[in-house]
């Protein structure tokens, strides 16, 4: 028989709620009282059995979407706090060329500036980290103004940076400095996700960087102001079912080894180029531990190889809008794009 007054005390003892002195006293009593001892044992056994139930593994599904949102917010935050964040490598590398990069910078600035924060529906694109082809077109310098207006369409942004042409030469001189910071930025493991169409890209900083280096009037404060609503906009989105535009990825397939493990992923689509679009193919290779070993990206004539070192350093966006998976798991759980 359990002593009536002890009922709660036994529960409290089993739950660890008693003061040490009280606990000792009750333990001592229980040692000499069969009923209390048995009840205490049963309570402890119950607590142990239920408290020890193993966790139920969370499914991968959905994680990538949250991480994409986190990246957006992080980038916007950094852009706001540290306007000196650097331009990613693609801005000055390869066939896009510096002039194109500068034009792209201006384009992005114009697109994002007056429109912030973008409408909710567009935020979803930003969340999925996928650029619309228009934003990534990186028109040659000479064509820039016309293309910009074309892309900006109904948004009718007021120009933030007027003298675009002036920026090119100084920007070229600034190339090395930008490059150094670029390496630092990349080492942190972020990718820029230039996204147009009203979804404010979370990378106003590289634009600010180029523009500032080029002595175009764009203050850090201004870049920060641009970034803040971007973060807010990215953060506002909560419906995640929307599909991002499909141009970059019209086909996707996973490559599996003999044992069924995912060893690679191949995506094919179209990539914007100055003269129209070119075929795009992205091949990722994953190691036995699931890590990205490397990738080959082909956009028309252009071929970009991403090394294991690049992957390890988080340089995962060889072309604007083309984002590599860091792991096989990430590739597997990537949000649905154009498959359905």
């Amino acid at each position: 028989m359990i002593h009536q007054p002890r009922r709660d005390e036994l529960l409290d003892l089993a739950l660890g709620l008693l003061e040490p002195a009280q606990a000792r006293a009750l333990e001592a009593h229980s040692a000499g009282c069969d009923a209390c001892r048995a009840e205490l044992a049963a309570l402890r056994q119950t607590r142990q059995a239920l408290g020890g139930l193993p966790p139920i593994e969370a499914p991968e599904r959905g994680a990538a979407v949250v991480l994409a949102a986190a990246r957006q917010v992080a980038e916007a935050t950094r852009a706001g706090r540290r306007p000196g964040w650097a331009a990613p490598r693609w801005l000055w590398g390869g066939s896009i060329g510096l002039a194109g990069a500068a034009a792209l910078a201006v384009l992005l600035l114009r697109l994002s500036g007056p429109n912030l924060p973008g409408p909710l529906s567009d935020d979803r694109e930003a969340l999925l980290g996928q650029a619309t082809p228009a934003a990534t077109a990186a028109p040659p310098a000479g064509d820039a103004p016309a293309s910009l207006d074309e892309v900006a369409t109904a948004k009718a942004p007021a120009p933030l940076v007027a003298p675009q042409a002036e920026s090119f030469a100084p920007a070229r001189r600034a190339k090395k400095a930008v490059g150094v910071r670029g390496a630092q930025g990349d080492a942190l493991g972020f990718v820029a996700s230039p996204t147009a169409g009203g979804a404010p890209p979370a990378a106003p900083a590289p634009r600010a960087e180029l523009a500032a280096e080029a002595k175009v009037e764009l203050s850090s404060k201004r870049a920060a102001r641009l970034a803040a609503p971007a973060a807010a906009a990215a953060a506002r989105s909560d419906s995640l079912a929307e599909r991002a535009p499909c141009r970059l990825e019209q086909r996707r397939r996973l490559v599996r080894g003999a044992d069924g493990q995912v060893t690679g992923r191949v995506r094919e689509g179209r990539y914007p180029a100055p003269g129209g679009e070119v075929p795009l193919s992205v091949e990722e290779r994953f190691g036995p531990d699931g890590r990205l070993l490397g990738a080959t990206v082909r956009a028309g004539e252009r071929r970009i190889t991403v090394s294991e070192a690049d992957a390890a350093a988080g340089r995962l966006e060889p072309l604007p809008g083309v984002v590599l998976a860091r792991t096989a798991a990430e590739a597997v759980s990537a949000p649905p794009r154009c498959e359905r």
Partner: protein
Amino acid sequence: MAADQTDEQLMRRFQRGEARAFETLMLRHRTPVYSFLLRLTGERTRAEDLAQETFMRLVKGAATWEPRAAVRTWLFTIARNLAVDAARRQAFRATESLDATSIDGPRARHAPPAATGPGPDEEAEAAQLRPRLEAALASLPAEQREVFLLREHAGLSFPEIAEATGVNENTVKSRVRYALLALRERLAADGVVAGAAAAPRGGDAP
């Protein structure tokens, strides 16, 4: 590298713009949060959605987070509140209210979440026992279940649980006591633990 940092350190880094810190944070907590939600709601799909939404809220709210608040408490508070909101909004269990104040309120009728399958090293006995334990947990009234889960699985302190659930600490303790008692009796009836030797039934818990 990041794995041995505290939640709070990781959150600070995320606040400074390091997305990887958030990833570490999420990897660390997504299974506990999902487990909590699954056991709370009894519905896999709902738990998945709620878990995703929980982490989205974390992303959104990161800027306003202050180091004095434990990330873990925050996370489970969000998860718990989302679950309550969802239950209210959709009235997915018409007979149950997560926020019911009476412990004599309607009992949860959730099907216990199916086990994810025993690991290869799990003993057959444990595998057999587990569904019964899950069922016992699922049989608790929701307000006892959430408190028990927050205490025993999430490892929150009583003041933290009080904050998360919006009731006072004494009520939390009382609910945990009732939960343990109910579980003990259920397991006794199931033959999992020794039967209550003429134990007087309830009535004396505050």
